[in-house]
């Protein structure tokens, strides 16, 4: 949703806000100044792109090479490692699915309640959810381990998913609260007047309007649970329940004195590929227009 300024967008949003805007603005109006600004902008973007993509290129390049020659050996080793890639992917898939769905349910409902409904105890609940951020995972691992065991959720993927939902909660609830807050209440009121039930109004009108928020929550729940290492490591005792990151670290830590960078790089690619694909698929959702679409619809 680009703003409609006077035309000539010079795509130069400096990473640091310039100090004296008026002069910059004036310079932008003069031809030479504008060209200089544009060149600076291009250079800045190129530098940024190299910074963000360079390491990834190095990973891709390293993953398809073995002893200086092109080869798929690094990938082949991963596919057959341990219990086999299929097992690890399936385990990771279960954790991811439960975490994403759980995070959405928890955060959409709670976010709505925080944004729209004043209720006693809401502050305490909100601070409680934020407090999750403030406890190092390290400190909670052993209590969680003991407690999940009590609940008969020890050594299970469900237990790992519940912990992941909990870890994601501050982010997901905060995110959804902000999303709901930015939706004008008039939308909902209009829907209620049209005869929607409160829940119906939430579903038909408000949810589409907060779509970018829900997608962000789902995406990050996916990424977090897909990549999490320490939690499943401590909570899962059976090698055949391991998730992908555990298998990868195991493989990389197989030798002391040598980091198997080839295997590590192939592992990064294998674990990153689904995430990148998902992002490609979802990023269209970030293209503006939902709010308006919802109003029009």
């Amino acid at each position: 949703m680009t703003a409609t300024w006077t035309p000539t967008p010079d795509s130069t949003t400096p990473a640091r806000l310039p100090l004296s805007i008026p002069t910059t603005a004036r310079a932008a109006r003069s031809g030479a100044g504008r060209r200089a600004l544009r060149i600076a902008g291009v250079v800045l973007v190129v530098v940024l792109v190299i910074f963000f993509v360079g390491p990834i290129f190095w990973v891709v390049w390293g993953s398809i090479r073995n002893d200086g020659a092109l080869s798929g050996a690094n990938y082949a080793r991963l596919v057959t490692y341990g219990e086999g890639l299929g097992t690890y992917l399936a385990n990771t898939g279960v954790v991811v699915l439960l975490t994403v769905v759980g995070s959405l349910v928890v955060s959409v409902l709670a976010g709505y309640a925080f944004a729209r409904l004043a209720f006693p105890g809401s502050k305490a609940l909100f601070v409680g959810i934020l407090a999750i951020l403030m406890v190092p995972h390290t400190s909670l691992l052993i209590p969680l381990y003991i407690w999940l065991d009590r609940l008969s959720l020890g050594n299970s993927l469900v237990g790992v998913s519940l912990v992941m939902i909990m870890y994601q909660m501050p982010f997901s609830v905060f995110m959804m609260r902000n999303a709901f807050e930015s939706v004008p209440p008039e939308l909902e009121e209009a829907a209620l007047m049209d005869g929607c039930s409160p829940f119906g109004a939430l579903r038909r009108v408000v949810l589409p309007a907060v779509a970018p928020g829900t997608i962000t929550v789902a995406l990050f729940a996916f990424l977090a649970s897909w990549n999490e290492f320490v939690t499943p490591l401590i909570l899962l005792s059976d090698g055949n329940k391991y998730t992908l990151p555990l298998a990868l670290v195991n493989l990389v830590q197989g030798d002391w004195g040598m980091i198997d960078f080839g295997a590590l790089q192939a592992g990064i690619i294998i674990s990153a590929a689904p995430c990148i694909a998902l992002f490609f698929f979802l990023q269209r959702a970030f293209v503006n227009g939902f709010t308006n679409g919802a109003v029009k619809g």
Partner: protein
Amino acid sequence: MTMVHRRLLSGVVGAGILALALAGCSGGDAAPTADDGTATPETTAEAEPAEPVTLTMWTRSVTAAQSEALVAAFNDEHDGEITVELTVVPFQEYLQKVSAAASGDNLPDLLAANVIDGPNYAELGLWTDLTDRIAGLDYADALAPAHIAAATTDGVTYAVPHVLDASALYYNKVLFEQAGLDPESPPTTLAEVAEDAAAIAALGNGIGGLYLPGDCGGCLAFTVFPSIWAAGGTVMNEDGTEATLDSPEAAEVLGIYNQMWNDGSMIPESRNENGATQNAAFEAGTAGFALLGSKALGTIAENDKLEIGVAPIPGLDGGSSTFVGGDVIGISSSSEYADAAWTFLEWTLDEQVQLDIYASAGFMPVRTDLAENEFAAQDPRVMLFNTLVEDGQTPYSARFFQTFNDPQGPFLALVREAVFGSGPDSLPASNTLVTESLQDS
């Protein structure tokens, strides 16, 4: 365009709503309680006859190759009566995993450990007493003595050797020749190591003398202690409660390393080497010397720039010693299948198993009476490792890891100050901190 979005979104949101409708009404926990479908066909806790038994076993990722080979062969042989289910744990997180499992009283039946953690595990009560079972073995005296000592506390032995490792001086024969040294007569004193390293470093062209894992406490103990022992010195008192690194022997040994650092015969990257890539410089053929364990022999590939020679780690005036590393394995104190677990352990120590599975694959046998075997006979370097074990040592302390291995422990600071900093004059002050850590409870 927007249509696509709307559809996509309603899918995502719909899924959420569905789950919400399912879970929200109950007002309770939104977690599905169904089985996740990946449960193993493990023996549930039914009261069944003594057999068949399934044993769980944990080992560190660095010993995965040996553990997996053993378990696979054992399960084949014991077709169904005893099955061992092995879980390999990333070694840097092993202590975390063990302490969580111990807190929840969920230790596996068979629990392996880094040998230096043996006294700690014993003190924490993680293992069950194996003294009598071990005494019943015909070859009890041949089990790697340093491992048995490390696994013995107050006269009770809790574990048997599982994987053996020993430190040695690796040297590159190609660079020896280039520097005009005799590749068949490696140095026999630490001072000679320094001389030869200086000669090799003088080659220039990216070639360095000695590569030391200078930012890895555990590696430094593994590689520097043997010289002190060979010189007749000690690193700790008998029961591992006082450090003796302020001794003249330790000062002289670390002084030689300090001199190598100052005169440029030590490779500069040594100061930052945290152990994870300590083989790299040697493998690349750019280091004359490296102090490494037995495993490196099998994993480092020789090439036109590298021909591997192995010599014992020398002391100050001749003599040599080695740090016997590796892993021990015991039966956890909470295991309900101690007999079956012992069946497995005894099987792993059997002569045929040691030869067929260990020696033939280039792993060190864990029994001194098997040191000279047909496989080792094919490579004098392998034979050297096997014979080093007899006189090697494993330092004993219940606080070993936190003092020597932990990157924040006082030992690493001691070595770094003595080698890369002000020199061995700093030892008395540093040694006091090491002792404090050994007594910390």
